[in-house]
């Protein structure tokens, strides 16, 4: 459960996002302009911030984040924006944002990103091994084993699996994979990601009863222990 600050001026979008996040078990505070948002963010403590990029009240999303970062506030920030140009995304991330989601978006996409950001490992200690059930991924030797049996994966498949395992138990959307694993910031017309995931899935599940990578309907993928 996270305490989330939502700064969004559009009443409908704000209501929809707030309701969805609350249903997912989070506490949500809402401000409808930049000034109030900044005041709340500076005076209370939040696990993460969801900000509209363009806000009324003189303080827009970028200004808000810049101000917070100057004050040493390191809470993760997710931008929501109707500005889709790549330059705008870069601007938002440069200002101190951690992720950028273009409107219109599916709520599942927003939720997946919020949870991925909010549950980033708090300890800075480097992880050398990731484990999900009997699947092990060794980041040093760059090998994958399941129940001790070695599985051959290509470098990109390794990164794909690593990303899924770092977010084990969380939904990872196709767009997130595209951005984080391939660094592609556009929408391929066909779902190439599905092909890559099903390839990886075949390699992992071959000879085992329990599938590890699960498809989450209308959202994306999730790796977790129990089927």
């Amino acid at each position, binding site marked *: 459960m996270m305490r989330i600050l939502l700064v969004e001026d559009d009443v409908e979008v704000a209501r929809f996002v707030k309701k969805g996040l609350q249903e997912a078990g989070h506490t949500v505070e809402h401000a409808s302009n930049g000034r109030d948002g900044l005041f709340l963010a500076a005076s209370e403590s939040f696990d993460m911030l969801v900000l509209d990029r363009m806000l009324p009240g003189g303080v827009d999303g970028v200004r808000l984040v810049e101000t917070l970062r100057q004050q040493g506030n390191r809470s993760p920030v997710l931008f929501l924006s109707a500005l*889709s140009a*790549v330059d705008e995304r870069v601007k938002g991330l440069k200002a101190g944002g951690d992720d950028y989601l273009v409107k219109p978006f*599916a709520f599942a996409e927003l939720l997946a990103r919020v949870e991925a950001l909010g549950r980033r490992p708090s300890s800075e200690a480097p992880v050398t091994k990731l484990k999900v059930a009997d699947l092990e991924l060794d980041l040093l030797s760059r090998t994958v084993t399941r129940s001790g049996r070695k599985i051959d994966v290509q470098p990109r498949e390794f990164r794909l699996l690593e990303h899924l395992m770092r977010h084990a138990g969380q939904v990872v959307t196709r767009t997130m994979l595209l951005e984080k694993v391939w660094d*592609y910031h556009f*929408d391929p*017309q066909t779902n*190439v990601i599905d*092909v890559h995931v099903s390839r990886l899935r075949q390699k992992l599940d071959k000879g085992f009863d329990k599938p590890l990578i699960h498809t989450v309907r209308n959202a994306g993928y999730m790796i977790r222990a129990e089927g």
Partner: protein
Amino acid sequence: MSDAPRLPGLRPTPPRLLQSAGFRFALLFIAIYSVAASFLVAVLWWATAGALDRQTIASIRTDASTLVERFRESGTPGLVEAIEERLALDAQNETIYLLVAADGRRLAGNLRDWPTAIGEDGTWFRTRIQHDGGVAEARVHRRDLPGLRLLVGRDESERVQLRLLLTEGVAWSLGAVLIFAGLGAALIRRALQARMRPAVATALGIAGGDLSHRVPLSGQGDEFDRLGATMNDMLDRIASLMAGLRGVSDAIAHDLRTPIARARAKLEESLNTAAGEAELRAAMEEGIADLDNISRVFQALLRIAEAEAGARRAAFAPLDLPEVLRDAAEFYEAMAEAHEQRLETDLPEHLAHVVGDRDLLLQAVANLLDNAIKFTPPGGVIRLEARDTGARIEVAVSDSGPGLPPQDRAQALDRFYRADSSRHLPGSGLGLSLVRAVAQLHGGEAVLLDAMPGADPPGLRVVISLAKL
């Protein structure tokens, strides 16, 4: 008020005289012309009237020195004698001498009285004196000797006359100079205005809303022609941007409204006729999927517009093209395999660096690979190549699909073109149009060719050329 805002579409009033560039050029012309003329006159004056003056002064000075010398040699009588000798020899009566004793008594010379306005020893004067039966203009020099005062001078009446004549001449010619300068200035101003008129007329026509006007060129290849040609280039660019904008609005009108209308109809219908919750739910899910598609098309249109407007050149950076292409090939290879196709690559280890936008180039190549995979039957081959042609870098994607008849190729690069045979396949029909926009943004072009000329099917080969660093 001169700074009151002009209403758009109004014919601008001709500039007031002082604001007119033509007038300012003309003034400058007059100024330069006058300075040159004045300089000429000054030199002339110095060489004529000035020379005469200098000559007079030199002669007086020499005369005075000789007389002083004479006085030193043979005293007052010698001096008196010398003066009288000189006066006797002076037929034109030009010289002036006066020698007086300390008590004011005249000892020699042709002046009756010591002039009143004469100062100290060694000084020069111009004065009017009674001489030669009348009043004359004279230049005199005073030298004091022990117990004596000496004046040596020259009657300058004739020189004054000459100077007057000269002044008159100069005045006339300066007047003529001013008249010519004014005429020249007026001509320059007229010529300037005449040469500017076509550009002004064109600009007015365009301000009036008709973009088809172009500046007529005189063909002389001068500065005005260059200005006109530059204006025309600019207008062509604006016209093509406007056409692009119109294209976007047409596309939005047609290809966004249609799916919106479809989605709306479906939702409305299910609202009216759905038998139960399950059916309603299904209809809503479909509606959301339709909306997602619409926003995808919208996003693609915005990307194309961004590329076409050249707005992204700011994000250009040198990039390693083979690396980018290898990534794209790897990304699509899995998909080709799923379609039972083979994706081959022929990429050099290194290529000259291209300055570009990684995201856009990647998306263009992805669109091509995506298309190729979509249209190539199972068992087919798709090739991604890149090479340096010397002048350009070429990236090509070929497939063994049905290809595209030559008459459809130009259209295929336009927005929302979809071959009739592909209506059932997913896609916005914007893929190739983005490819072209991206190629043009990178100083190149996109060309469609047969992948295997003569074969059946010929396959399609799309070549994007990119300008080198």
